[in-house]
């Protein structure tokens, strides 16, 4: 068990190092000349060289990578080109606000999609199943900004029941804040619903077809007891893994949703950093998303192992 955890952790660290290399390459090598990119085509060469020197971008690549990555390990995420202030002072508050939005989305989607998937499985092949499956699949493929725009038209402009922006006025109580976050959370919910429901349905069907459920039914247990005690306990395990891997996606989907709803989270931070060519901010933001994803999958794997006695025993050997 400990050996497995250590191996899993080592793999995650290795992936993280590779990820940081890729982000570094995309953020510092591909743009060519950051000084020119920031100052624009009309700045004098003298000014560009001076800025390049200040930013340290004319040193060797391994040297630059080393400075960048050791800085990050020590909690120094670099200095924003745009604001001339530490990246961390923008990144962490933005990440916190995004997590708030993600939490609202999760609280809505997890129970909804599990119930949807289980109901579809219990009605396998019937109209209910087909409607849930096809609708879930279709909705999960529609880009967030598309469903977001439709939702704004209907609920914010047509019915006027929810606000157009995501940020509640400063100092609002928590319920008001949540009310502002509902509309932005729905596009994320729509995307996630299909995947989680599909997984819950597949898991439930597998359990329903198993020998132990047949035995439980044949020995005369009422159907709902069979479902609660034998089906759900087995079918929801794989769903946990899916939910955790979707966290990574969720943080990515925030770029679009936060831009659309004008919400100052990590997604919009990355978006504005990209349009302003603020590479340190962009790199730190993207790295943060990668770390959140790796953490989520790590937690999912560990949780899955802990909750599933079959794996726990095999791996302990």
């Amino acid at each position: 068990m400990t050996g497995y955890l250590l191996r899993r952790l080592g793999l995650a660290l290795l992936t993280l190092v590779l990820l940081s290399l890729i982000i570094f390459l995309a953020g510092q090598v591909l743009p060519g000349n950051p000084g020119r990119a920031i100052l624009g085509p009309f700045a004098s060469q003298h000014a560009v060289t001076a800025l390049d020197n200040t930013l340290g971008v004319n040193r060797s690549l391994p040297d630059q990578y080393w400075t960048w990555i050791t800085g990050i390990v020590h909690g120094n995420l670099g200095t924003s080109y745009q604001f001339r202030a530490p990246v961390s002072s923008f990144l962490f508050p933005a990440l916190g606000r995004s997590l708030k939005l993600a939490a609202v989305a999760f609280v809505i989607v997890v129970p909804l999609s599990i119930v949807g998937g289980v109901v579809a499985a219990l009605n396998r092949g019937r109209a209910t199943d087909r409607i849930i499956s096809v609708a879930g699949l279709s909705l999960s493929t529609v880009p967030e900004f598309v469903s977001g725009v439709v939702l704004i038209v209907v609920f914010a402009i047509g019915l006027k029941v929810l606000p157009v922006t995501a940020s509640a006025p400063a100092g609002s109580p928590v319920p008001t804040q949540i009310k502002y976050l509902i509309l932005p959370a729905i596009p994320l919910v729509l995307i996630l619903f299909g995947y989680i429901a599909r997984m819950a349905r597949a898991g439930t069907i597998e359990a329903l077809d198993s020998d132990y459920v047949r035995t439980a039914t044949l020995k005369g247990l009422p159907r709902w007891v069979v479902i609660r005690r034998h089906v759900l306990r087995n079918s929801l395990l794989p769903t946990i893994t899916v939910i955790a891997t979707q966290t990574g996606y969720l943080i990515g989907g925030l770029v679009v949703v936060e831009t659309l709803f004008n919400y100052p989270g990590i997604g919009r931070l990355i978006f504005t950093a990209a349009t302003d060519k603020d590479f340190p901010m962009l790199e730190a933001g993207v790295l943060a998303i990668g770390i959140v994803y790796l953490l989520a999958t790590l937690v999912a794997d560990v949780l899955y192992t802990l909750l599933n006695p079959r794996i726990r025993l095999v791996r302990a050997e």
Partner: protein
Amino acid sequence: MADDQHRESVAAPPATGTPDGLGPAPHDPLAVGLPPATAGAATGAVDVSARRIRQEHLRQLTRSKPFLIGAVLLLWWIVCAVFGKSFSPYNPVNGSLLQFNLAPSGSHWFGTDSLGRDVLSRVIVGSRDILIIAPLATLLGTAVGTAVGLVQGYFGGVVDNVVGRIVDAVLALPVVIVAFLFVVAVGPSTLTLILVIGFVFALLIARTVRTAVLQERELDYIAAARLRNESGAHIMFVEILPNVSGPILVEFTVRLGYAIFAIATLSFLGFGIQPPTPDWGADIASSYQYLAAGYWWETLFPALAIASLVVAVNLIADSIESVLIQ
């Protein structure tokens, strides 16, 4: 999009072998269920039943309602992409500046936008670029991904490990974010979009193909080919490739949907197809700020167009998957 790539964990496992245990999946992606032509002599009887099974699969597809709905919608958008310029009611790029923000009416069914351009014409012609870029990017990703997956799965060892780790690292980020990062660094252009999305998809597809190849590698026809002293390249591309074509076809159709998702999203963020070229994502980006003013038609119709296209492609992908991989 999004991402999408964290979603392959829920994709169906690739089909290898046949349900009835006749041997590996065969040459024709639409004829799963036959012994491979390479394993036995390609007799007339095999040819006949290959055609029969292919017909059976086509029949199953044409009977499935989701597939038909998807096919009709996709066909409509392809017609718009190819001939749209000749039948769109107005010029999609040059509007009449005096007739801006007009609500839908008899002369402008979908209204006009803030520059006086006919929204219906822009929606029709807007299918063009996305329907060129998305298939090309997916094709590139499928070709490269298949080659990488074959090499990874067939040779295994160090190559497999190194590629596997790089794939893991890139996939720790949603497709849209990876594409976004690279497009920002190099600057948006049609070629950049195709290359970036093709590259990310290649990694994803390589993963699927690798899994399929791993299962094929152990089968007898590969051992037979080795005994015949065939080269590695011959075994990979002539013996294995035809037998993993089913999962590759499924992967291609599923990825095509994600490519449309990713390109539309990038265009919306301003890093995809650039104005004034009519494009649904870019049009939404330039018009959604007027939503609060009540000009909903400028945003809603391109949004519905994107939704119908991605849903169509995914209905097709899902139907093919359920027919080929049972």
